[in-house]
């Protein structure tokens, strides 16, 4: 089991979450430091996505504690948790979940616009991130006009555009072929490490987990930290 390390950015202790009779989490432990990439692994239905949703404040656990940067997530109001997610967290999901009506650069700029930035400033910053993710040539295209791998890189750029301290990635390469998946992982981890952002990476693929610094294994709702940080 993971112990709460001093200086952790995010720590979870004894998380429990049930959906009816099913115990999705049954005493899960987790911790991550700034700049660290931690893979959450485990078979289908083991509770790894539930763990990610609890850690990100999307789903409240039934019991247990989640501490982010000294603040207890479970004691925050919904509005406070939403504000935290907008300002400090970034998200990448299996399918990019880009807004189809917007161009790619508008999609990447969207979180900045929602935080009140002007269109010009937001799109300039967005384009910088698109260059880093090697998709700046797609700025005027809509999501329906780009490939799955390109769309996922746009989604990574959108997740990083606000400078989050913590990035949650749920099977980010699950819908991609091997080559595209690896390139997305290279770009995602390089970008996160360059900004000292921590990455919580849910994956069932060992080749994807190999981009992490260490892994946490979830089985039957319990998580085990089987390797200390390198």
């Amino acid at each position, binding site marked *: 089991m993971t112990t709460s390390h001093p200086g952790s950015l995010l720590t979870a202790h004894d998380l429990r979450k049930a959906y009816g009779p099913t115990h999705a989490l049954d005493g899960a432990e987790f911790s991550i430091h700034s700049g660290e990439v931690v893979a959450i692994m485990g078979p289908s239905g083991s509770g790894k996505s539930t763990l990610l949703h609890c850690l990100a404040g999307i789903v409240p656990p039934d019991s247990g504690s989640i501490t982010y940067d000294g603040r207890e997530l479970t004691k925050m109001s919904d509005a406070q948790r939403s504000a935290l997610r907008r300002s400090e967290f970034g998200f990448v999901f299996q399918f990019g979940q880009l807004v189809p009506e917007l161009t790619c650069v508008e999609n990447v700029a969207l979180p900045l616009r929602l935080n009140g930035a002007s269109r010009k400033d937001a799109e300039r910053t967005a384009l910088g991130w698109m260059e880093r993710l090697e998709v700046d040539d797609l700025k005027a295209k809509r999501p329906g006009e780009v490939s799955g791998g390109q769309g996922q890189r746009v989604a990574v750029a959108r997740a990083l555009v606000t400078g989050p301290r913590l990035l949650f990635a749920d099977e980010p390469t699950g819908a991609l072929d091997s080559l595209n998946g690896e390139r997305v992982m290279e770009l995602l981890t390089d970008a996160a490490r360059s900004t000292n952002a921590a990455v919580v990476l849910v994956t069932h693929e060992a080749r994807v987990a*190999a981009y*992490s610094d260490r892994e946490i294994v979830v*089985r039957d709702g319990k998580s085990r930290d089987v*390797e200390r940080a390198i």
Partner: protein
Amino acid sequence: MSIGHTLLGLLESGPRHGYDLKRAFDEKFGHDRPLHYGQVYSTMSRLLKHGLVEVDGIEAGGGPERKRYAITDAGITDVQRWLATPEKPEEYLQSTLYTKVVLALLTRRDAAEILDTQRAEHLRSMRILTDRKRKGDLADQLICDHALFHLEADLRWLELTAARLDKLSEAVTR
């Protein structure tokens, strides 16, 4: 595979004659490569010399004397250490892992722990290869990919075995 450790593990359930040990080994792990009697007796002599087994009794009969062997405390510690040490990841090591998992189940140790430790060791190797791949040229990438795919296959076997531990436990302890 370490025949010595495997025979020691088989002795944990109770003292046996060399012949019984060979039969148990062949049945559970021998598959198409059964042990020779000579291997059993030379291995037992070595284990005896190192204090990992002791002679529990000798039956005199018409033929040669039949020694019955029992594992010592030092032998149990040795088996425990072997089971807990992950194998160096390499191609086609499933037979050793399979032996470790079955022995753990037979001796009521935590087989899931062995699989988890091995998974961590495999991932450690995969991280090193992935890092080399990121920094290397195309030749490096292809060489690393070859190794990565083999390690990934091992990991898939580890996952499947972990998911089947309950059934395997029933089968091996029947």
